[in-house]
């Protein structure tokens, strides 16, 4: 059920008005592919837009982030300078529902009852997510529900000249004060949306138990034979969140993306590596996403976006 | 002074060009102070990484070694020759200004040549447009 119908022209004007207060991010076409960039005020994603190359996790959990700076002070303890958290309010629109849902999975990692990561949560609080429903599945897609509202604040459905708009969250509702958004009754989806192309049930509740059984199987060695441990799967995955904390040369403590696919991810100072070959690392990635995360949080750390495929 | 802010990193081989620079100093041949010298055992030790990395922080690079045939390690500079040709060609290909990275052979007895080359290279780099450090500075 959608709540409003607006013409694309009205939506564009509304978004341009929003740009006065918010930074607006959208999928920007570079060559043949789309990446996240500043919205130019005019372009809309083409018909061939399936998904961006990189997920929007960059916008909340940057690849390289300075956590704090420190300076030596003679005779005293070092001076610690916390960086100013970015104050801009942002709107990101054109996010696919799977990617929007991935944000709720990242939320479980960074914002939980034990600890709230200030850098991530600040960016999350200041950002409104407007998702755009897919017209057709991509080649590698295997999401369970193409209409999932998790993670979105507003959801759009492209109907040619108009967008159907669905209110999802309080934050989204706060944006829609513009008289452009009027409706007197809920609107049904006018067309048939294609179903999952693979017809697979990946969210099998027993998956976690099955994975426990095959932990020692030689299957892992076979599967990883062709894997070159490049790490691209972790870079492009919207839910992968492992990071490394290091000190940069100029007195900065930084957090940067790391990948369990790299051999040095678990290399210890003694030289011992508990995951010496790719087989252990591939197994670790699958286990983390479908067993450990499930046991800790009750959901799989995978949204079916298909980028790894 | 504008010139003082520009830096040129010079990779000099220990046996010839570094000794040549030393001789220039002892003989009081003047050369610009913004040449910063790094002593390496042989010009063959120069990994392309050194040059590219130096450009992140400096405005230019000079690499100097023994004359071919005079290498203290016999063939270090001969092997380096091929690398240098490729490095120069690659840098030119990607649009780096001519004169920002320069190579020469300077022997231990050529103190005046070192001073001349250093002055010439520093002068040329000073006249080039402001370098952006591979996009680091604007």
């Amino acid at each position, binding site marked *: 059920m959608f709540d409003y119908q607006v013409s694309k022209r009205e939506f564009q004007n509304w978004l341009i008005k929003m740009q006065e207060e918010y930074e607006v991010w959208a999928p920007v076409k*570079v*060559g*043949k*592919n789309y*990446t996240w960039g500043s919205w130019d005020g005019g372009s809309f994603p083409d018909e061939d837009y399936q998904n961006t*190359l*990189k997920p929007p996790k960059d916008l909340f959990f940057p*690849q*390289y982030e300075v956590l704090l700076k420190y300076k030596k002070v003679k005779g005293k303890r070092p001076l610690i300078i916390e960086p100013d958290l970015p104050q801009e309010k942002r709107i990101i629109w054109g996010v696919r529902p799977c990617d929007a849902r991935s944000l709720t999975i990242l939320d479980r990692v960074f914002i939980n009852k034990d600890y709230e990561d200030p850098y991530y949560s600040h960016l999350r609080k200041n950002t409104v997510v407007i998702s755009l429903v897919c017209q057709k599945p991509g*080649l*590698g897609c295997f999401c369970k529900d193409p209409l999932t509202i998790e993670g979105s604040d507003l959801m759009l459905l492209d109907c040619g000249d108009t967008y159907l708009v669905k209110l999802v969250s309080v934050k989204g509702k706060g944006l829609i004060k513009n008289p452009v958004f009027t409706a007197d009754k809920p609107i049904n989806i006018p067309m048939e949306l294609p179903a999952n192309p693979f017809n697979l049930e990946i969210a099998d509740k027993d998956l976690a138990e099955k994975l426990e059984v095959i932990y020692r199987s030689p299957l892992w060695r*076979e599967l990883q*034979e*062709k894997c*070159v*441990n*490049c*790490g*691209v799967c972790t*870079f*492009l995955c919207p839910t992968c969140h492992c990071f*490394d904390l*290091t000190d*940069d040369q100029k007195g900065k403590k*930084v957090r*940067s993306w790391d990948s369990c696919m790299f051999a040095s991810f678990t290399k210890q100072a003694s030289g011992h590596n508990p995951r010496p070959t790719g087989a252990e690392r591939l197994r670790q990635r699958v286990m983390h996403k479908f067993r450990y995360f499930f046991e800790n949080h009750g959901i799989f750390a995978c949204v079916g976006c298909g980028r790894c*495929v | 002074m504008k010139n003082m802010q520009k830096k040129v990193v010079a990779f000099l081989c220990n046996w010839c060009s570094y000794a040549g620079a030393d001789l220039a100093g002892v003989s009081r041949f003047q050369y610009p102070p913004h040449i910063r010298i790094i002593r390496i055992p042989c010009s063959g030790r120069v*990994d*392309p*990484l050194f040059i*590219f*990395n130096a450009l*992140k922080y400096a405005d230019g690079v000079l690499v100097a070694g023994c004359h*071919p*045939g005079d290498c203290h390690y016999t063939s270090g500079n*001969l*092997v380096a*020759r*091929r*690398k*240098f*040709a*490729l*490095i*120069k*060609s*690659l840098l*030119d*290909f*990607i*649009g*780096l*200004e001519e004169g920002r990275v320069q*190579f*020469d*052979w300077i022997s231990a007895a050529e103190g005046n040549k070192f001073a001349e080359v250093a002055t*010439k290279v520093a002068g040329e780099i000073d006249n080039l447009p402001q370098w952006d450090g*591979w*996009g*680091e500075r604007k």
Partner: protein
Amino acid sequence: MTVLENIKAKAKELLEAKEVEVVIGFAQGTLPGKCTPYFARTTEEVERFVWQDGCNLNLANYLSKFSGKVGIIAKGCDTRSIINLIKENQVNRERIYIIGANCPSMGSCHNCRHPQGVIADFYAEQVQLNNQDDFSDVEAFEELLSEERKNYFYQEMSKCIRCYACRNVCPACYCKECFVEENLPCWLGKTTDLADNIIFHLTRTMHVAGRCIDCGACVRACPMEVNLSLLNRKLLKDIQELFNTEPGLSLEAEPVLNEYKEDDPQPFLIGGEESV
């Protein structure tokens, strides 16, 4: 018999005679038009081999993963990589059995000069194809003004996300510790800043110079479609012009940056070419 049947027959023969423990080849991939590397250990598994458009990965990269005797179905670029690996003592010639065949995936590499195997223990087909590579793409780029070249280069480099896929699929990149992972000294930051990206790619290009045979694996592996082939092919062209040689063609020739000649050209010198 078709090429594929030849390949399968030979692979089965090798496995049955226990001359090799595994044969490396391609099988049908999960997405249309794509093939995936496949490691057959039994005659039943050999049946899954394919040899068609889409078989374009460089399989020589996998040789170091196996310690016993391996067979490999090698097209042109694979064989040249194997030659380079043998010359650099990374792979023992006696422990590999090369089944050579012409590359079935010509559409993806327009400039390929050697689609047929350069070295093989067994040729699965006799047709010899030979293209002429004129490096016209490199020359076209060289025609541009230096400002335009710099802008294009910076733009391409800003796309890079430093995933190192290019390095990992390259058969020439086999260092146990890559220069990007070194901590003492720390050459490159972990950022995806333009400067770090540029230094990474320029250095990697120079490190594989003379050993890169333009198989295109790096270009295909890159998730952001950075134009890596431009850099590698520029050096291939230079090596052809300056030193009159092509890497990976013969087992006897020294790697081009390992050797030197008395009259090597010196176009890089201050004041131009000087006589030695």
